[in-house]
């Protein structure tokens, strides 16, 4: 209870609290959706070692999501499990990039690379933020995400460098994801409030530019197409498609089988 009171006290201003809740929900939903989706590789990854690696990455993301839902739960005084599981699909705020299912291995790697590099840029803008609970949590998350970027980068390099099926599959995934890649930076409701309060250090637009500039040398070196502009950025975290509906059906099925049960 002490933590809850402290958390509320720090965000007494209603506008800031609402904006912060939107940010936490977007961050948590991103981590939750990619973590759950990548966990589908457990048991079927290309080799046993990679099976362990991908499962471990997926668990990391679910761990980050749990911590972020926990912060949000304290902020708005709601059970974190209820936030994670008891919403209709359209109420989730993950970015459209993650509405693409895991697909084949090339799709998973392309999605991971785009998401992890964008996530790294986004987290850097939060780590020195004025709301201590989030800044502290992000400081820890960043240390784990470093490895995620290394892993995705190592695989992207291999798929891109081997002509034939590996590169062809990667290019197909790249084309499919391209217009949605930048949705990690879709503007959030109240982000100017957050910037004013010193909780985030830059606007979504600035972060997106920074991310595109950062990955450009890698894309040039691997001869991957420069990403197109983000499609409908203002709707980037809304209107999740059929693929997500199916994923949602999976991750809520146990919870819905016996609502209110104690596990």
């Amino acid at each position, binding site marked *: 209870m002490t933590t809850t009171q402290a958390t509320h006290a720090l965000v007494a201003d209603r506008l800031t609290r609402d904006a912060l809740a939107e940010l936490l929900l977007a961050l948590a939903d991103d981590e939750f959706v990619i973590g759950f989706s990548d966990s589908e590789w457990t048991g079927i990854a290309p080799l046993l070692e990679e099976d362990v690696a991908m499962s471990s990455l997926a668990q990391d993301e679910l761990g980050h999501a749990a911590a972020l839902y926990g912060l949000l739960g304290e902020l708005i005084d709601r059970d974190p499990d209820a936030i994670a599981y008891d919403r209709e699909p359209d109420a989730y705020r993950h970015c459209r990039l993650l509405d693409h299912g895991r697909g084949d291995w090339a799709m998973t790697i392309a999605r991971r690379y785009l998401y992890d590099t964008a996530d790294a840029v986004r987290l850097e803008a939060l780590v020195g933020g004025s709301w201590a609970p989030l800044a502290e949590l992000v400081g820890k998350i960043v240390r784990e995400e470093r490895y995620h970027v290394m*892993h995705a980068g190592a695989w992207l390099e291999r798929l891109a460098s081997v002509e*034939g099926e590996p590169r062809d599959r990667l290019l197909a995934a790249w084309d499919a994801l391209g217009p949605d890649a930048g949705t990690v930076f879709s503007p959030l409701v109240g982000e100017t409030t957050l910037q004013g309060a010193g909780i985030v250090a830059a606007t979504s637009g600035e972060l997106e530019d920074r991310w595109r500039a950062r990955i450009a040398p890698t894309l040039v070196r691997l001869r991957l197409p420069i990403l197109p502009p983000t499609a409908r950025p203002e709707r980037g975290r809304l209107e999740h498609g059929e693929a997500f509906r199916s994923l949602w059906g999976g991750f809520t099925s146990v919870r819905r089988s016996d609502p209110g049960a104690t596990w």
Partner: protein
Amino acid sequence: MIDDTAPAGAATLEPWEVFRQEKEGDPMRHGGSVLAPDAELAVHYARELFGRRQESVRLWVVRRSDVHDLADQDLLQPPLDRSFKKPGGYLMRDKLAAARAVSGQAKPRARSG
């Protein structure tokens, strides 16, 4: 784990031996092995299999084919009596006891840990 039907151009997997250190100052101990196509992924997989639960502070990853193997029993387990090469060949116990008696020191206790 090894796919014989891998397409041409695909890297072949080979075994890498992983040594791990549990805490600073400990010796490196053999942990096991991973299959990987190259050193970079071998290090990734070593990290996942021998380090993801914070059970290691350092890992060494060595390509198995770079390890020089010696298992020649003629060299390692010679058939003749070599007991004179063991420190047990020298009976130090009585001499040590006599020296302690002179100096008045007690026998040191076995080191723990």
